[in-house]
């Protein structure tokens, strides 16, 4: 019952968020700031994670290739498909749920407990639209960029690991990367990314905006935001896979 009530409150929040901004100039300015905060600042962690994960995927695949019936390019192919289908859109989104989600919830939550949101409301500003819409827009614009960046680095990491370990040649790896490439998988991955980005920022904003109490409660809201966003990502991942790959 409580979950249903919370979901209703979340939907009502979104209906206020998606209204016309009071001033487009402020909206544009804040969106660029959020792209920097949410997107650009996440580049280092995404780069680090993607390179090492790509390397590990390639090494694990190579180590399991005992059958002589499997062609050499299989390592490249598996690195490509697991990166595009699951690792970059889903795992990176789960990592961003931790980094961005906690950041968004604590930022908005702090504004709530220090009465900055009340100050906005008193001035006549639609605080939800003012605070949350630029964040959602920034996530929708920049999360796909992060995921494409992650895909490229992951495959680069795989290549580097195989080359250093002397397990394959560049030509064979690239042949594997290009084998059975399905462009629809990119569409699928980016669609998932957009949905995950929206879920992370909107759910985290929800927990931050409706926090009550003091700094301790902001911390709790931040944790709840990360947990809920992660669960929402996993559920959405299942539904989108069913809808896009199997129907």
């Amino acid at each position: 019952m409580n979950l249903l009530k919370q979901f209703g409150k979340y939907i009502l929040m979104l209906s206020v968020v998606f209204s016309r901004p009071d001033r487009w100039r402020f909206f544009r300015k804040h969106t660029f700031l959020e792209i920097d905060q949410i997107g650009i600042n996440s580049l280092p962690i995404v780069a680090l994670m993607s390179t090492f994960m790509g390397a590990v995927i390639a090494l694990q695949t190579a180590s399991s290739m005992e059958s002589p019936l499997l062609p050499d390019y299989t390592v490249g192919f598996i690195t490509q498909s697991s990166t595009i289908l699951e690792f970059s859109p889903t795992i990176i989104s789960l990592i961003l749920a931790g980094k961005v989600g906690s950041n968004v919830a604590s930022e908005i939550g702090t504004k709530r407990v220090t009465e900055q949101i009340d100050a906005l409301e008193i001035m006549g500003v639609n605080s939800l639209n003012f605070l949350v819409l630029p964040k959602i827009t920034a996530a929708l614009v920049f999360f796909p960029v992060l995921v494409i960046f992650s895909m490229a680095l992951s495959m680069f990491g795989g290549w580097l690991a195989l080359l250093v370990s002397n397990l394959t040649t560049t030509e064979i790896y690239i042949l594997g990367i290009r084998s059975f490439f399905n462009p629809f998988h990119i569409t699928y991955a980016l669609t998932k990314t957009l949905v995950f980005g929206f879920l992370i920022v909107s759910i985290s904003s929800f927990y931050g905006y409706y926090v009550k109490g003091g700094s301790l409660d902001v911390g709790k809201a931040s944790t709840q935001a990360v947990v809920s966003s992660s669960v929402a990502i996993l559920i959405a991942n299942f539904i989108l896979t069913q809808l896009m790959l199997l129907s």
Partner: protein
Amino acid sequence: MIEVKNLVKSFNGQKVLFDIDHVFEEGQVNLIIGQSGQGKSVLAKCIVGLYEADAGQILFDKRNFTDMDRTERSHIRQEIGMLFQGAALFDSMTVEQNIMFPLQMFTNMTKGEIQARADFCLDRVNLAGRNKLMPSECSGGMQKRVGIARAISMNPRYLFCDEPNSGLDPKTSIVIDKLIQDITKEYQITTVVITHDMNSVMEIGDHILFIHQGKKWWEGDRHSIINASNPEIESFVYASSFMKEIRTQLQKKAL
């Protein structure tokens, strides 16, 4: 002028405000006083619409705020300035940007006009030249003054101050009180101050509303509160031994 008619507010089925009827006069410093937890802040938050009242009416110069939708309320709110207990300055903005924010948001003033207005407001609260400071670099008293500057930047018709002296030393409190009083008289605005600071009551209380157990218990001015024969008011006004001593001395002198 703000009129409150039969205002009722409950939280989780528990009544916090009972049929409050009151008029906050224009050009006067109207105080809402009472002990902690009696409903002062809830009353103020209902008036400005941060809490929805369960029943009753709130009229801003005869305009019924309770019946308005979000857009109509937004227009009224642009006539309201509010100083929060913790100043509630936007922490990512400088002092100057805090004051400019409502002007940029709601007016079509040019950059130069906005700058001039921000400078004027800062000068009005004796903070000229402190434009580029961040809120975290300001003392508590300075933050309150910036809060007042931001509140008056839009030339409000109504000014709300939620415990403006909390956390301030007595001397700075008097500076803030005088500032609120001067601005009220100068611009003939309707000022509502929520406080439980007796110094403020005696310094600026033109019209006082005493709230007790969520009910309107007493109203009057700073002169009449001293002699009010109500036991709840007496225990509020003469809560400290120092005040009791003063009362005894005054009574002795009178005899």
